[in-house]
């Protein structure tokens, strides 16, 4: 008797073969090609048999014989939402379902995978950890993700300058993919922008594993930084798993509340491009330093 896992794999294989036979899938490769395609519009699925297939791009109209095809295309171009996908009876068509599963998997990967060592090495930034001990706890105990471990406090104190004007750091938050796909473009643009504004007293950036937004308060207090900028991975959705936010705070204290933070969200290639976001943040930080406040007081004051 087949275990449930085997059964599932069997179904998937049969469905894929059937689809290929009917010409629903382009480019089915039976050879063993384990790597994943990097073309973003053609997501790939690798199944147990190392078979790999490419799905048609998500922009494809799946409605059967649409009367106004161009109208559907125009509407689809306005949103990443899954519209104009047709249906099979009351359900999704197979391509839609597979895209959905692929996107859902990406979202899960973003939450469950670590930011790679290779990435941190390439960026030349050191890593510290919050009081969270593993991924499971990171998800269930947000309070611990707001506090640095004792080792982290020591490492930061040793490696970072105190009393700087601007301290930038990176935290995985809920998407390690957001970090890996945006920080390398954003950070140099931010630093170049700050220097261009005459702000040169910038602290050494580092990475906080299992970090939440509020960990920036402790870091700000520890380093007595005037402005703290946290680049943190946003909770992934089915539209994108790569979205990054910047939480900026002026002189955080134990009494800091959420309204004291200035937030810039939706930083990714499909939103505000990370380079442009870096340049924008530089100007925003200049305003915060000038106003000596951040968050709601900055917008209304």
């Amino acid at each position, binding site marked *: 008797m087949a275990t449930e896992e085997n059964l599932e794999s069997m179904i998937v294989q049969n469905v894929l073969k059937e689809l290929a036979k009917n010409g629903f899938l382009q480019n089915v490769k039976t050879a063993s090609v384990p790597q994943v395609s990097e073309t973003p519009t053609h997501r790939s699925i690798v199944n147990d048999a190392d078979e790999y297939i490419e799905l048609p791009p998500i922009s494809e109209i799946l409605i059967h014989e649409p009367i*106004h095809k*161009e*109208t559907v295309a*125009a*509407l689809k171009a306005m949103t990443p939402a899954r519209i104009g996908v047709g249906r099979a009876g009351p359900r999704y068509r197979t391509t839609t379902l597979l895209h959905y599963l692929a996107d859902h998997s990406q979202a899960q990967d973003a939450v469950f995978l670590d930011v790679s060592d290779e990435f941190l090495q390439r960026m030349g930034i050191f890593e510290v950890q919050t009081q969270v001990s593993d991924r499971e706890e990171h998800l269930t105990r947000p309070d611990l993700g707001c506090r640095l471990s004792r080792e982290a406090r020591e490492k930061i104190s040793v490696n970072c300058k105190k009393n700087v004007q601007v301290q930038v750091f990176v935290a995985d938050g809920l998407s390690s993919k957001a970090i890996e796909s945006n920080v*390398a*473009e954003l950070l*140099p*643009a931010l630093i*170049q*922008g700050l*220097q*261009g504004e005459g702000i040169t007293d910038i602290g050494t950036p580092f990475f906080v594993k299992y970090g939440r937004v509020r960990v920036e308060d402790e870091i700000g207090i520890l380093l007595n930084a005037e402005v703290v900028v946290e680049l943190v991975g946003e909770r992934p959705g089915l539209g994108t798993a790569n979205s990054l*936010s910047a939480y900026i705070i002026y002189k955080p204290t134990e009494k800091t509340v959420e309204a004291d933070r200035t*937030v*810039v*969200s*939706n930083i990714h*290639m499909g939103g*505000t*491009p*990370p*380079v*442009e*976001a*870096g*340049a*924008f943040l*530089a*100007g925003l930080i200049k305003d915060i330093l000038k106003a000596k406040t951040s968050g709601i007081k900055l*917008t209304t004051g």
Partner: protein
Amino acid sequence: MRDRNRDELISVGIDIGTTTTQVIISKLTLENLAGRFSVPRVQITQKEILYRSAIHFTPLIEHHLIDAPAVAALLSAEYSKAGFTTGEIDTGAVIITGETAKKENAKAVISQLAGFAGDFVVATAGPKLEAIMAGKGSGAQAYSVKHKKTVINIDVGGGTSNYVVFNNGKVVDTACINVGGHLVELEPLGSRVAYVAPAARKVMRECGLTIEPGQTAAYADLKKITDKMAEAVVAVFAGTPGQGMAGELMMTEDLRRDYILDTVMVSGGVADFVYDQEARALSMEEVSRYGDIGPLLGVSLHKAVLESGLFVARPEETIRATVIGAGSQSLEVSGSTISVVEDLLPLTNIPVVKPFAGLAPADPAKVKTLVERSLEISGFEDTSVALAIAGPADMSFNSLQSLARGLTAGLTREIERGRLIIIVLEQDCAKALGQSIKHLIPGNRSIVCVDQVLVEDGDYIDIGKPIIGGRVVPIIVKTLVFNRPDND
């Protein structure tokens, strides 16, 4: 400090056409639509027309000069009637259209008038822009967005008919034909011919008619002429291109016709007679009441347009389409993260040069060569030019640095001569590119870098002072090409 999330601009539109001159004043509301937690996204959210002038006859001296003092007087009278002073006008456009654009002093009059009309009021002309403004003002553009259709708007004026094709809001084609309601002038309420424009002579010849000024024209003969004209107007988009009367009267290239039209809309003064059900049977007095054959051309067009096989949609504006297009549709806003030095603005009449066909090359040396070559070819010696660039090779920090290096190298001569560095990007990266260039030439305070604006080689661009707390700049893209005088 003004509100950082909302701003209002008073915009004037002035249309000096073959037959009529009109003024409108409108209020444009700009708002930051992004939430507190995002990078700003400023858009024009409302366009309200505050004042519509009467429709005046364009003051001309003989048939070849615009009566500039009379036009200026007309404009000041309208401003005071509307309750506005020049100082209160933030922006707008003066457009000189149709046959009037061919007058000897057209260029001089329009630039003087733009200066007189307000601070950031720009001068525009050319059949392409005229067509686009009319199509925006008539509502054809909005219609194409709302119904997701390909719509052709024909603005039938006194001297010319201007075509613009919109597909889902985008301009895909334009053309212009020398057909209009004022090409044959009549004694008002009578039947004596007062003037016959050269284009009308061609039509008459085709109809086997010769009617000279001073003669009396028969209704049937005039109808033959307007039928022929209407046939030519429709042939441009529904017939065989370049053939017969249409081919002879075209003032621009033919429409490309590489798209399928769904809908036709007619605007301009003549349009009222196209859509008016009661105007089908006109008496001679009704035909000549405006001193030309306009009403009759409308009647002829009604039939011709219906026979084109396209769906005939009703415009929101007819005779005022162009002036409304100029007054409330010509201004756009840049992207909301830009890099500009306020003191340098406004900039007007900046010629656009497009150095790369697609995205910029990744190699700075290649960027340099292409920039230098495009500047040389364009040959603008005594003015700063705007470089139009789709975007860097890719949206990475390194590619932006390469682009900045290549641009700075390619613009060395311009920089040495004290010219401004004006970059107009399509993709959202103006702030980052601006700061990258500044990083390479520290201390240079003459960099204007804006994005999310579509411009083409040969366009001209006007860039206004920043609004909404300095977040965006107003931009007017235009073509300054004046019509070539035809052989009269």
